[in-house]
């Protein structure tokens, strides 16, 4: 982000300290492709094999191709710029998203479970996700694209801290 004089539109929140791994860009690009390709393929198949549908599959196919390309090209680096995380001795703080940026703060005293998750694409690329849930169903903090060792280490630290913090987390 280019530095500029803080204008009144700025949020007062500072960015979390750590970035995620750089090759998480490949992870997001892979997921974007897996969303865009089926749509494009179905439309292309319709265009190729079903002549009567050409009036609407034609324009839809070109729109889908352009939008899909833009999505795969623009979204991953944007996400890499936005996704950050930080674990202090009081709370977990993470920012995520691309078009819509979300900053989430979860205090250690409200944490209920800490999990490390590795999907198939994560395992291919050597990444992991850290999922921290609280008592609320919508209060979970998910940090994707971490180094697996870092994720496991952070999970262990969080487990230790939350076990020592009193309270029943509701």
């Amino acid at each position, binding site marked *: 982000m280019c530095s500029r004089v803080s204008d009144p539109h700025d949020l007062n*929140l500072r960015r979390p300290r750590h970035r995620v791994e750089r090759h998480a860009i490949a992870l997001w690009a892979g997921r974007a492709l897996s969303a865009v390709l089926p749509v494009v393929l179905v439309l292309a198949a319709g265009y190729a094999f079903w002549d009567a549908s050409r009036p609407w599959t034609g324009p839809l196919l070109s729109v889908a191709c352009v939008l899909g390309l833009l999505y795969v090209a623009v979204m991953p680096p944007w996400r890499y710029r936005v996704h950050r995380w930080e674990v*202090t001795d009081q*709370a977990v703080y993470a920012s995520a998203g691309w*078009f819509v940026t979300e900053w989430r703060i979860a205090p250690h005293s409200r944490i209920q479970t800490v999990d490390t998750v590795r999907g198939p694409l994560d395992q291919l690329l050597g990444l992991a996700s850290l999922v921290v849930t609280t008592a609320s169903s919508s*209060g979970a903090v998910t940090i994707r694209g971490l180094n697996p060792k870092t994720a496991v280490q952070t999970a262990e630290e969080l487990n230790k801290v939350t076990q020592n913090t009193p309270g029943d*987390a509701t």
Partner: protein
Amino acid sequence: MTDQSTHPQGDDDAVEVSTQPPTDQPEVPWLRLDRRMIFVDALRVVLTQAPALIALLVVGVSASSVWPLIIFGAWGVLRSGANVVRWVRTRYRVTDTYVELRTGLFVRQYRSVRRTRIRSADADARLLQRLARLRRVTIGAGQMNTASEAAIRLDAISLSAALDLRRELLGTQAGDTTVASAPATEARASEARASDSSPVRSQELARLHWWWVFYNMFSFWAYVMAAGLLWGGQWIGAMFGLDLWAWAGDLADWEALGLLGSIAVGLALTGVLGVIGMAFTFFTEHAHFRLERVPSADGTVLRTTQGLFRTREVTRDDRRLRGVALSEPLLWRPMRMTDTAVITTGLSMWSAAVTILPRGPRATARRVADAVLDEPSSPLAAPLRPHPPAALRRRMVWAATASAAVTGLLAWLGATTSLPHDAWWITALVMLPLLLSLALVGYRALGHTRVGRHLVVRSGVVSRTTSALRRDAVSGVRVRQSVFQRRLGLATVSVSTAAGFGVYEAPDLAARDAAGFALEALPDYVRPFLTHSTDETAPAAGAAVPAVTAVPR
């Protein structure tokens, strides 16, 4: 870290089902359900068969058109027989540590609940049971609302036995060891009665006013109810040889009125019928309504009792209470119609148990909410900080874009397919003002503030909901900002909590206030992440912006 009581699975641990009794206490006798239950049920069977008998004998209709009534009658007889079997098979008893239920003739099955896990013992009754002074006792353990499966259900025992049982179970809920050492039932009962006369009395918070019916009668459901009544009437009439449709056709000269006139008259008449039906339902459901705060063994509970034929009693633990939410539907805003619900853990927000008042005037809702929250300065009466005009611009832009998109689509369809060509501008004429006014209404509903221990947020177009949530119930904070919001200088702050809906949102705050509001939600945890140090002690009512002192970091 993971506490059992936060997960809604208390039921599985509280109720034990086995083929052996949990404790072997031969001196505590097994009690039967009340014998009058059989007679009450037999009477109900006779009453359900009455229409069939009348139809057959008096009116003289042939048997083929009353077959549904015959089926109902047969079903009633079967149910009554099953009840007799149930009475023979079922026994219950209350020991020092358990409430036990024994069912089965040849293979015995024991169902038991630990007395320390019992959270509620409700006694309700249908009309015939009330006349016979019987009550059905539903004992609940763990986190349950009244609609889910109860731990133990005794259907039915006599009124005095039910009241004694309730007093015994709820009075000594704290697991008092001095009481447990006394084995005799009489000593336990007298101990319970003594602990009931505690210095804290029951406090009545609200009582039914008959004119609340006007707030409940007028609703879309009136038409649904009228349709149901008419269809049912037509069907029953057909069984007796009457044709409601033909009779209605003879009532008036429909051709003279024309199509629109007949539809208007028809809608008006069904509307009247529906409104009367809704009023009737309101009175049968909410008769004798009372909301009170009642002391229990470890604190107080909010208890509602209501019902004409069948009393429903619901208790909500005050220790689980985290806030109150008032919602006002859009169309009835001039009438100030308000629904009152509590924000609590342990109850699904969609269940009926969270509503503590029938739909009524806002003044009553406010008063009751203040009494429930019991704060020195009322959170729901505090003036809310308005959101910036940029939020209105954002909503207007969305409204205009949506109408433009729909209009464009209709224009394209009108040009390429067989849709009428004029559809697009008629739709635009209707849709654009409507969506723009909805955007304005939505903007004016926005507001947020902090009052003492509570955070208050308000939003919503179709139903404007003001939620007051305790600050110590907040388990996380989320600040969202889309690219459009960033350009307009807005952000949305949501607080997540274990109670109620799980997340409460203050949409479209000014960006520079967002961090301040997040700080008010989680004071100690958000402060390390701010760029400027913000003065957290914003005045409770009528505050504009918390003071920001820029500290170079």
